[in-house]
Structure formats: structure tokens, C-alpha cells
């Protein structure tokens, strides 16, 4: 019996690396994909990194061909600034309601010349850059963002606050700015749903003993990634808040691990990557890595660790870490592995926080009819069947929305979800 | 042991010289043929006209007494001869080839390039004291031969070719057996084996490698060092005389595009040289367009690019044998230029052409950390 649905579109939620991989793979088999992304850009978290472990490949160079393919793929309907509002129906026949916010810029007319940025009178902290630099109310989050089309932040745009301003529209030579764009409600009929909504980082404000936001030059991992990024707020120059080059730095692993109750599996590796970042820009910098257990599974990862060790980094197995300001510098008191209390003084601290679920994860779970586990990640049906399968047939969870993991595992899961969808709809197979 | 190393464990066989060195070598080869160690020998003889030398493949051991291993000129590069013999695959008979180290090295390179099958070939090299330029030799063959023999006796290389005068590999052992004559008493020479094949031959002939070859090694090392110094200086001089592109073009300005250098070169083994083919010929309108944009265009237009292209194609295997310069009717210092370039290109990969059959060609190897000095240092 041929159970192939006349409607065979797939909904993919999230255009990060997992969502992009799944969409491209589905398109290859001639499936139509509706790829929903809540931000104005694609690429998710991975495009914030300059390099990825363990071969230090340029992250954007790795991902942007995929982003480019995505934008030119006729089978993929990319809906940006959009969220899923409602899901009804049954496996094989879901009825999805999407809420799409307007970009206020016409994607066909705009050529990405950025002439509309300068004239905008509003300047706000750029969230993509983790607040380390500013942007305008009409903006592209960073150089190289794809699609290369700005959007208007109505919360800060003067016009949308009731003031009379059309500076951006006046500057545009292509009639690309359209203040009259409206919110859209889109209804889709899909065969299956892949949830690839990613993660956020544990907020170190919840662990005040690390001094985050109280002491200058204590950065989170993402802030430091942006500092190092060549398209970031300092064009890749690693400098302290006072503009000076740090002579010493400490990278603290496992931020939030105790509170969250699990190991996020990627932080040790990216902390070692940070070591490499620092040494490559500041060869004489003295680096301390404070960790509890070194978690570096992965066949090529220990090699990388050995390489970093050889650069003279001091690795300290530490507990009871407390970070305080000491004059112009930062003091880190801790108990070392022998039980002795120690103190190190550094110029800069980088905190490697746990990977935690997105703030809206449980809300989306409700809409989709799936559940979250007690950590807040989407719950798989049974790990021993497949970690991408949920108790709701037709709804798959992939990437860090299911649990912390590295890019390789994320891509495998994205491929697996597509494998499961395509497998079930092979001709002659009963769903 | 491949060249002048100073390991005191190296031993060799001492052969006492009866009458002349040449006779004794030929005797050794005759004995080997008598005992069936090889069935034929590829060796130089003086041509009947008496004004040149050529390789012959001989099976009649009686003819060995008239042969002339390592003749005063290189009429044909020995590697080319071997290449012809196994062009269509190896034969069933064992052949011994006795030639100069650079010819042996070219043979090794051609084997790596899939052009020679060494299975039934035994390579025997001999210390080389140089080769005379062919054009000047044939002006007066008798007198030149005498000059040659005198020069060898006192190890004086002023009459030899420019590339030979700066050759530091004239005693390099790259084949199966090597006959060492440098620095030994006039009435003896060494035979050393380099491979299992070579050792088996000595065993079959009842020759035991138990004599200390230190004197020879020391002389070889000394000679190599001296030549390396001369080589460095010669290359420096050559480079400074061709320090820019215009000067380089001038060097080749009287090239007549005969491609003789390529034909004489042992490494140039292509059946159809790229530069002889239609690939370098363009539609006539294209020539006119170039002429229009530059004012005029030289014909034949691929004169210089032929040399650069040939350099790119063969430099990593160049053994500095000098055949190209001998063959050039316009006396362009091709060998000196190509030899100097080969030193540099091979030096980039720490490779010496023809030194070892086991060492793969640089283009076929991939090493992660290589040429980092020319890479953009990002991390």
C-alpha cells in the first residue's frame, strides 16, 4: 500500500547548522522544506565562532557555503523573523500556524549596500556581538551575515515609537525599505516537523562568585568569541576594557555545571580552543585553565589538548573558585587538586558556561505537543531507539535543543532525523 | 651507505689492478659473465671512426677487452639507453649497465617515473672525474682523448664541462654496485655493494666485502666538500649575472627552438613533448591580437616558455648530467641554469634526485607540515 502523503512538505524550526543541514538534505530528495527562523539571519550560534575545534577551521568559511546554498535553493521556503504559534493535526498531516514579523525591508529589492545604516539616528547595544558594540535600529547583525538584508528593530526605531523619521528610506536607492509591511500569519500543511532550535549559554549572573558583570574583563565564552572574531567589535583584537593588551588570562571551565547537574561536553574543548586563540594573537600571554574533570571525548581531541599543553599553559584542577577585583587586576582564589588554597592574579578571565535550553523551549514544546526533560531540553522517546525521536510521531528533535553536543553530533542528528523521515516515506513502506 | 658517509662499518672489496684500471674493470665484468652472473653488459665503446663513443649492449664477453667504461664524452645519457631496453617490459636475461653516477641516478628517477623496469638490470657506477664538452672533443678526438686521460690521472677537471667541474655527487652510490677509484693506490680499487642485488653478485663471485674503505670515503668526502664550495660560488655568480627577468630572457635570446636539450635529457621521457604538440599553437587571429596589443610578437612564440615549462616538468628529477648543454647548438648554458634551479627545487623538499629508489618523488608525497615558510602563517 502506498502511504506516500500527497502533502510531503517538512517543517524545520531553526536555521542554525542543524536546521540548515536537514533542510538541504531534504531538498536534495526533492522535498519542499519550510525553514522557520526567529532571527533575521541564518547560521545560529556557530557563525559567532571564528574557528572550530579541533582543526581550527574558520567557522564562517565552513558554514557560509551552506547558508548560500540555502538562500538559492528552490525547494526551501525560508521564513525569517518567524515563530511557530500553533500545531494541530496528526503525524503525516500537521497543520502549522506561523507568525511572521515584518522585516520592513524588501528582500528582492535590497542589495545589501548598507547605505541605510549611517543616517539612522538610533544606536543600541548589538545583541549578536554580546553587547560589546552597537548597532542602529536598521541593521545587519554582523559583516557577512546571510541573508545580507537588514531588518528594522521596532522596539528602538524612532518611527515605530511614534516619531517622524524616515532617514533610512531616504538613503535607499532601491526602494527597498517599506514601513507598511505587516505581520503575517502563515498556515502550512506538513508531513513532519524537525525541531532544531539550539541553545543558549548559562548566565553567569546566577553564579556571582565568578564576578561576571561586576568585574571588568570577565567575559563569557560567547563574548570572547566575538572579541576574537575578525568581523567582531574589535576586528579580532584581544584587548581589555581599558584598551590594553592582556599579559595573562584565566579560562574557567564548568561554569554552572553544579547548578545544572550535567556536563555540557563541549566546553573543555572550546576552552582549549580559547587557549589557542589567545596564544595566536598574544604569543607571550600567560594562560591558566581551571577545570574539574577534563572531558575531551572524540578521537582527535586529546591530540589537540596535548598540543595546547605544550604551549606552556598552566592547567589546574580547581574547586571553590572565587573571583575578585584586585586593583587593576583580577584575583582568582581556588583550592587545587592537593587540597591547598591558592591564588592567581590575571588580567582577563573567560568563563566557559554550561549549555542550557532556550528560554522559550518549554513554550514551544507545549505548542508542538512534546515534553521537556527535567533539565529543560526536549525529551526523546527512548535513547535506545533513537535520540531524535519524540513520543509524538512525526516530530523530531535535533542538536542542542535535545541536549548539549558538538557540531559533529548535531549534524549527525540532523542527518538522522532526515533519514527517519525519508525512510518512513519510501514507496511501499507503511509509515 | 649512499654517498660519502663516514661510517667505519662500511666495507668493500679490494680488487688489485692488473695493467690498467680499465682492463681490470673489464676483466671483472668478463668473469661475471663467465660465471653467469649476468648475460649481457651495457657499456661504452669507441666508435669505429674513432671520433666518438657509444653505448653497446654486448653478449660476447670477448668484446669486453675493447670497451671504454666512463668515456670522455656523454654522447647518449646512459639512462636513455636503459630506458630503451626495457621500454616494452623487462627481458629474461640479466643485463649489467656500467655508467656514471649521474646516469645511474637518472635511471633511478626514470624507474620511479614508471619508464624503466630494473628487475633484470644490475646498475654499476664508477667514480667519475668529469666529462668533456662534446663539441670541443670532436674537433680533435685523438688529442682530446689524451687530454682526458691525463686529466683523470692527476684528478684535474679544467678540461671538463662547467657542470662537471662543480659536481659534488661524482662518487654517489645509487645503483647496486659501485667502483671506487678516488684516493686509492694506483694498483687497486674498491667495489662496494649498495643493495641486496649487489651483495648477491659479490657473493656469487666469491668476493667478500671485508676491507676497510675509509681512505676512499675520506677522499670522496673531501672532494665533495671542495666541489660543494665551488658549486655554491658558481651558482651565486650565475644568479647575479641573471638577476632579473630581462637578463634571463637575454640568456635564452639566441635559442633557436630546436628542443635538442629536451631530446638529450634523460628525464624528459614524454612520448610527445607538450611543447612540440598543438597545445601550444593558437588560432592565427589570436597571434594577431597579441601582436596588436604589444606591438609585435616573436616567432616562434613559445621559445622561453618552453624552457620554463621544461624546468617545471623535470626539475625535481634533474640529475645535473649536463647532456642538455652538450646538445645545444647555440651554446646556451642550459645545464648550468637547470642544474642550479634543480638544487633549489629539490632542496625545498630535501630531495636529491636519483639518490634512493625507495624515496618517493616529492610531488607524490603529502606531509602536513611542509613549506610552512611560504604559507600564510595564521596560527
Amino acid at each position, binding site marked *: 500500500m502506498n502511504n506516500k502523503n500527497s502533502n510531503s512538505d517538512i517543517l524545520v524550526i531553526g536555521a542554525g*547548522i542543524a536546521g540548515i543541514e536537514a533542510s538541504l*538534505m*531534504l531538498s*536534495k*530528495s526533492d522535498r519542499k522544506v519550510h525553514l522557520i527562523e526567529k532571527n533575521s539571519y541564518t547560521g545560529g550560534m556557530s557563525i559567532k565562532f571564528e574557528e572550530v575545534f*579541533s*582543526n581550527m*577551521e574558520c567557522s564562517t568559511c*565552513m558554514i557560509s557555503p551552506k547558508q*548560500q546554498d540555502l538562500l*538559492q535553493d528552490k525547494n526551501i521556503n525560508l521564513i525569517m523573523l518567524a515563530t511557530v504559534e500553533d500545531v494541530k493535526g496528526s503525524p503525516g498531516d500537521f497543520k502549522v500556524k506561523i507568525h511572521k514579523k515584518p522585516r520592513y525591508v524588501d528582500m528582492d*529589492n535590497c*542589495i545589501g549596500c548598507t547605505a541605510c545604516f549611517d543616517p539612522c539616528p538610533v544606536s543600541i547595544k548589538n545583541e549578536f556581538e554580546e553587547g560589546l558594540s552597537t548597532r542602529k535600529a536598521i541593521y545587519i547583525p554582523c559583516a557577512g551575515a546571510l541573508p545580507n538584508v537588514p531588518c528594522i528593530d521596532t522596539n528602538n526605531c524612532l518611527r515605530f515609537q511614534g516619531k517622524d523619521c524616515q532617514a533610512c528610506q531616504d538613503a535607499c536607492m*532601491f526602494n527597498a525599505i517599506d514601513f507598511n509591511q505587516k505581520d503575517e500569519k502563515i498556515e502550512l500543511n506538513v508531513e513532519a516537523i524537525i525541531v532544531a532550535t539550539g541553545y543558549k549559554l548559562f548566565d553567569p549572573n546566577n553564579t556571582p562568585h565568578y564576578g561576571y558583570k561586576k568585574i571588568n574583563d570577565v567575559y563569557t565564552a560567547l563574548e570572547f568569541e566575538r572579541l576574537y572574531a575578525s568581523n567582531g567589535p574589535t576586528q579580532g583584537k584581544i584587548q581589555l576594557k581599558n584598551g590594553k593588551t592582556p599579559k595573562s588570562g584565566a579560562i574557567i571551565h564548568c561554569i554552572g555545571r553544579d547548578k545544572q*547537574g*550535567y*556536563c555540557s*561536553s563541549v566546553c573543555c574543548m572550546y576552552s582549549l580552543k580559547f587557549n589557542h586563540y589567545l596564544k595566536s594573537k598574544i604569543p607571550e600571554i600567560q594562560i591558566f585553565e581551571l577545570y574539574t*574533570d577534563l572531558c575531551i*571525548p572524540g*578521537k*582527535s*581531541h*586529546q591530540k589537540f589538548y*596535548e598540543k595546547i599543553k605544550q604551549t606552556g599553559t598552566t592547567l589546574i584542577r580547581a574547586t571553590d573558585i572565587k573571583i575578585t577585583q584586585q586593583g587593576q587586576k583580577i584575583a582568582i582564589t581556588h583550592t587545587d587538586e*592537593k*587540597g591547598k588554597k591558592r591564588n592567581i592574579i590575571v588580567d582577563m578571565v573567560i568563563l566557559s558556561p554550561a549549555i542550557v535550553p532556550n528560554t522559550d523551549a518549554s513554550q514551544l514544546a507545549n505548542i508542538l505537543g512534546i515534553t521537556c526533560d527535567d*533539565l529543560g531540553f526536549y525529551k526523546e522517546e527512548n*535513547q*535506545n531507539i*533513537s*535520540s531524535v525521536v519524540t513520543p509524538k510521531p512525526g516530530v523530531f528533535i535535533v542538536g542542542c535543543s535535545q*541536549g*548539549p*553536543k558538538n557540531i559533529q*553530533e548535531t*549534524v*549527525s*542528528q540532523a*542527518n*538522522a532525523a532526515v*533519514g*527517519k523521515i*525519508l525512510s518512513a516515506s*519510501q*514507496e*511501499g513502506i507503511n509509515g | 651507505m649512499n654517498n660519502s658517509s663516514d661510517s667505519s662499518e662500511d666495507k668493500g672489496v679490494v680488487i688489485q689492478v692488473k695493467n690498467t684500471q680499465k682492463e681490470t674493470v673489464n676483466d671483472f665484468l668478463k668473469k661475471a659473465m663467465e660465471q653467469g652472473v649476468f648475460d649481457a653488459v651495457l657499456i661504452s665503446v669507441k666508435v669505429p671512426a674513432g671520433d666518438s663513443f657509444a653505448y653497446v649492449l654486448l653478449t660476447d664477453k670477448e668484446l669486453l677487452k675493447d670497451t671504454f667504461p666512463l668515456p670522455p664524452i656523454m654522447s647518449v645519457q646512459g639512462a636513455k639507453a636503459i630506458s630503451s631496453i626495457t621500454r616494452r617490459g623487462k627481458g629474461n636475461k640479466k643485463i649489467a649497465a656500467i655508467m656514471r653516477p649521474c646516469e645511474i641516478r637518472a635511471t633511478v628517477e626514470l624507474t*620511479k*617515473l614508471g*619508464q624503466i623496469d630494473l628487475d633484470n638490470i644490475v646498475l654499476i657506477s664508477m667514480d667519475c672525474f668529469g666529462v668533456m664538452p662534446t663539441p670541443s672533443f670532436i674537433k680533435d678526438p685523438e688529442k682530446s682523448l689524451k687530454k682526458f686521460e691525463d686529466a683523470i690521472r692527476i684528478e684535474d677537471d679544467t678540461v671538463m664541462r662547467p657542470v662537471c667541474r662543480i659536481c659534488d655527487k661524482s662518487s654517489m652510490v645509487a645503483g647496486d654496485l659501485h667502483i671506487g677509484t678516488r684516493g686509492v693506490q694506483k694498483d687497486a680499487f674498491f667495489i662496494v655493494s649498495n643493495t641486496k642485488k649487489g651483495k648477491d653478485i659479490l657473493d656469487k663471485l666469491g668476493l667478500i666485502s671485508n676491507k676497510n674503505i675509509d681512505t676512499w670515503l675520506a677522499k670522496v668526502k673531501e672532494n665533495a666538500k671542495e666541489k660543494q664550495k665551488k658549486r655554491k660560488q658558481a651558482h651565486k655568480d650565475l644568479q647575479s649575472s641573471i638577476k632579473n627577468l630581462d637578463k634571463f630572457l637575454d640568456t635564452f635570446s639566441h635559442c633557436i627552438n630546436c628542443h635538442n636539450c629536451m631530446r638529450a635529457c634523460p628525464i624528459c621521457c*614524454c612520448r*610527445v613533448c*607538450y611543447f612540440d*604538440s598543438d597545445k601550444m599553437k*593558437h588560432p592565427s587571429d589570436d597571434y594577431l*591580437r597579441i601582436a596588436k596589443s604589444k606591438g609585435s610578437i616573436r616567432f616562434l612564440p613559445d621559445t622561453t616558455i618552453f624552457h620554463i*615549462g621544461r624546468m617545471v*616538468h623535470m626539475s625535481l628529477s634533474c640529475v645535473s648530467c649536463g647532456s642538455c648543454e652538450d646538445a645545444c647548438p647555440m651554446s646556451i648554458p642550459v645545464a648550468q641554469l637547470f642544474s642550479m634551479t634543480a638544487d633549489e627545487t629539490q632542496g625545498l623538499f630535501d630531495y636529491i634526485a636519483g639518490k634512493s629508489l625507495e624515496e618517493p618523488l616529492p*610531488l*607524490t608525497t603529502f606531509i602536513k607540515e611542509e613549506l610552512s615558510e611560504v604559507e600564510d602563517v595564521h596560527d
Partner: protein
Amino acid sequence: MDRKIGVYICECGPNIAEKIDIDKVIKAVSPLDDVSIATRYKLLCSEQGKKFLEEQIKKNGLTHLVVAACSPRDHQHTFMTICENAGINPFLFQLANIREQCAWITENKEEATNKAIRLTKAAIGRVRYHVPLEKKEIESNPDVLVIGGGIAGMEASLHLASPQRKIYLVEKTSQLGGVVTNLEKTFPDMQSCPKIIQDKIDQVTNNDNIKVYTNCEVTEILGFFGNFEGTVTQNNNEDKTTVGFNVGAVVLATGCALFDPTDDPNYGYGKFDNVITALEFEKMNLAGNIRLKNGKTPKSVAIIHCVGRDKKGYCSEICCMYSIKFVRYLQNKIPEIKISNFYTDLCLPEKSYQKFYEQSRGKKNDFIRIDSIKITNPGNKLTITHNDEQGNKKSHGVDMVILSPALEPSVDTKKLAEFTRISQDDEGFFAEEHEKLGPVTTSTEGVYIAGCAQGPKSIQNTLIQAEAVAGKILSSLIPGKKIEPEVKVAHISESFCIGCKTCLTVCSYGVITFDSTKKVCVANEVICRGCGNCVAACPSGAASLKHFTFNQLRQELKEAVL
């Protein structure tokens, strides 16, 4: 040759128009030979622009098209499609990037204009030597050969099998199931492995579209994506039969082996009684027979993590978890037993692992961090000696020692890698195509890897990779759909080739074979990826790359720099 080259310079809004004097560029290229028209346009990628170009090609009877505009990454495809629609071969087109590579990076307008002129001239110079290239289509076989009948192979087979796609599952031993058949439970859920495995075996055996061949050794794999020929030798008692398969894809799911601690003097494995490996313990536990050599029940056990980690140079990811699972096994079967786990770093990389560890700790077990360890057997009592965290020497006497060894590549990895022309990584596992984005594909198109054959991993991650492989195959090898191989491929001229095999040695994709009769190398254009390695390495100029010939590149360069 009557060429009519049309040159169109895009203003790209202010991007190019404000930074480059376009009229000057037009003036410079118009008089060139074969240029039949050179003009400017506001925005060539817009709908009007595309229409304009198509009309221009038709109206002017153009034979070649040059566009000076943005990056090929943006619109190469767009303009090639316009060529096709207008009736000229899409490869008779060249795009000069005067935006990203000129206007956007050159401040001085005069400099930028001169550079734009050179870039456009270079494109014109090159396009003269372009030749039409045609896309090809070849038939493909949707069937799959899965090598390895463990959980990865079975999972992949189950997801792939359909009436239109036959799966041939070959297994070296006499049974399906692989290493999981030796385990009692999985971690962290403590679910029954026999049930999981039997479930899979039943599904595979009952699936009409999967044919299982046990007692098989692979002897040859020839061909390429869409058209492989695999041969196995089946040993049935004394009979040996040869079986051949025609398939479109090959999956390597050959699992892994355990590091052998015999040669390591620190562990006493093979020397002392009651020092066993994890696998031996699993088997013992599954049989319900945890006993010492003398038949007695052990009262104390030491579990040593990271055995062989230093030698192998990587963490095997699952050993800490299964070592903790052993604590559960033992607590369950021998409640009074005293257990000590000796580890260097605790590796608990999944969301539920830490909880599993914390819930396994109890009064009767210790987790002790060590940096070095030695096992001795004085007076026939197994003794574990190590340094504690303060650096003091400590020793423990135990009845039984379980060693948790590293996972290493299976013995068949080298042979299979050679057959399929893929590489092994530095650790000896099959090398994936890309560490991040290509974990289950390899450098040979159509050859996939899954499970521990790719690297140590848990059952859950193995299942994921098997499903991922299925996804890859399902999306690229579609029954009835032809495969479109790459157009810009290498070609080796038979008359120029000297048979030196340099190209063969440098090809990473197994494209080149040596014809021993003609003594020349031959490139399989169907699997060639067009990387150009062979062309660069060829010492006789026999190898050339379509659309990147020596003349095309030479003309482009000449116009750009001279």
C-alpha cells in the same frame, strides 16, 4: 572562429558605480577583438536585469558572455541560467568579480578603475578559450551493501530497505548482533540489551528487502557511486562460495575492537588470575556468573578506567559510563560487594550521564582519582597501588580487577579502507569526510561509515549515525533518478601520458586507474570531483581540467598582469 563576446558591467547600485569609473572600463574593453558589445546596467541580478541580459544575448547573436559584477558565489548560477535560457552553452560565460575583489576593497577610484579594467580584460581573455561543456547523466543502482551486522549495520539496513531498494547485509561471524550481544544492559537507562538486539535481528530477518549473509569476508569492492561491484567469500563449513553484489552505495559498519592490555606491565592482565577486561566481565555478568577463578564470589572489585588511553592518545568516550554501569551490575547481583573505581578524569558528556554517576555512588563504593596505577599480586592477593591526590602512595587489596580498555579500530579497517580507497585517520579509524559537517560520509562518494568504525561512541550515538547514513543514501541515491556527475572534471590524454602514475598517487578520490596494457593512466570522469591535483602534478601535461585548461588560465593571467 567567429566569436561575439558581450560584456556587461553591473553598477550594483552605488556599490560599483560610485567606486569605479564604469565608462572608462567600457572604453577600455570595447575595442578588444571579438567584443561585439560592451555596456553598463544598473542591477543585472534584478528581474529586469535578467530579462535585459537574455534579450541582449538573443538580439546581438552573442556567442560568449562576460559579466563584470559581484562574486561568483552570489550570481554565477544566475547568469549561467540566463545563458542557457538564451540558447548559449552556460560554460561560455565568465564572471569578473569587480565588487568584492575590487570596488569593496580599493579606496582610490583610479586604482579601482584600473583594476576593474584588468579583471574584465582577464575575463574576456579567458572566455575566448572556453569550450561548451555538457551535463551528463548516468544510471544508478539504489541497492546498498552494508558491511557489518552489528547494531549499526542493522539499524542502517532497516532504515534503507524498501521494495525498490534491496539491502545486502554481510557479516563476518556466524551471527548478527555484533558486540552488543555480549551486554546485559545499556547505560544510562539500564535497558535490556538482549531485548534491543533481538528486536533488531528479528526485524532484519523478517524484512523481505534485506538479505543477510553471514560468515562472509569482503574480497573486493570496485566501481563508483551508483555503480559499485562488491565481492565476498562466504565460508559455509568447508564450502567457500563467492557472492557478488551490484549496488549503488556501500556502508562500512564494522565496529571496533578492544585495546589488549596484555603487554602493559602495570595491569598484570594475562599474568594474574582475576584481572579481566570489560568485555570479559560483561559476558560473565550476562551469564549471571560473576565468579573468581576459584569459583568463589568476589567480595571486592576494582574497576580501572582509561586502560590504554595513553598509548592510544584519545579518550574512548564510553568507558567511564560503562564502568559506572558495572557498579550497578555488581550492586544488583552482589549487594554486599565493595567496589572501587580508579579514574583520571570522569568523562560524562551527555545530559543524563552525571545523574547516572551520582545515583550510582553509594556507601560501598569509592571513586578514586589517580594519575598512575600499578597492579601486583603479592601472596596471590591482587593489590592496586597508586598515588593519591596529596601525592602519597596508597594501596588496596581486591579480589577482582576489571580493566576498562580503550576502543580501537577493528582489524578489517585497513583492508576495507584500501578496497574503498578511503583513508584511515591518525588513530586508525575510517576517516570521515569532514570532522564537523561530514561525519558519516567519506572522500569516496557512495561509501559511508557509521558507528564505532568511525570512532568510539555509545550505542545511542551509533544508532544516530546509522540513521544519518540512511538519510544520506535516501537523499542521494533515489530509485529511478539518474546521477549528474561533475562537469568540470579531469581528463588524461592517452597520447601524452607516460604512465608515471604521479596523478594516481595524488588523487584522493580513487578516480585514476592504470591501464597496464596501454601503460597509461585513465581518469574516471564520473567520479572525478575536479580538484585539479592530478593536473598540477602531471609531469608531461597529459592531465587537464575541463574549464580550467592551461590556455584558459594563461590567457586570464596574461590579461590580468601584463
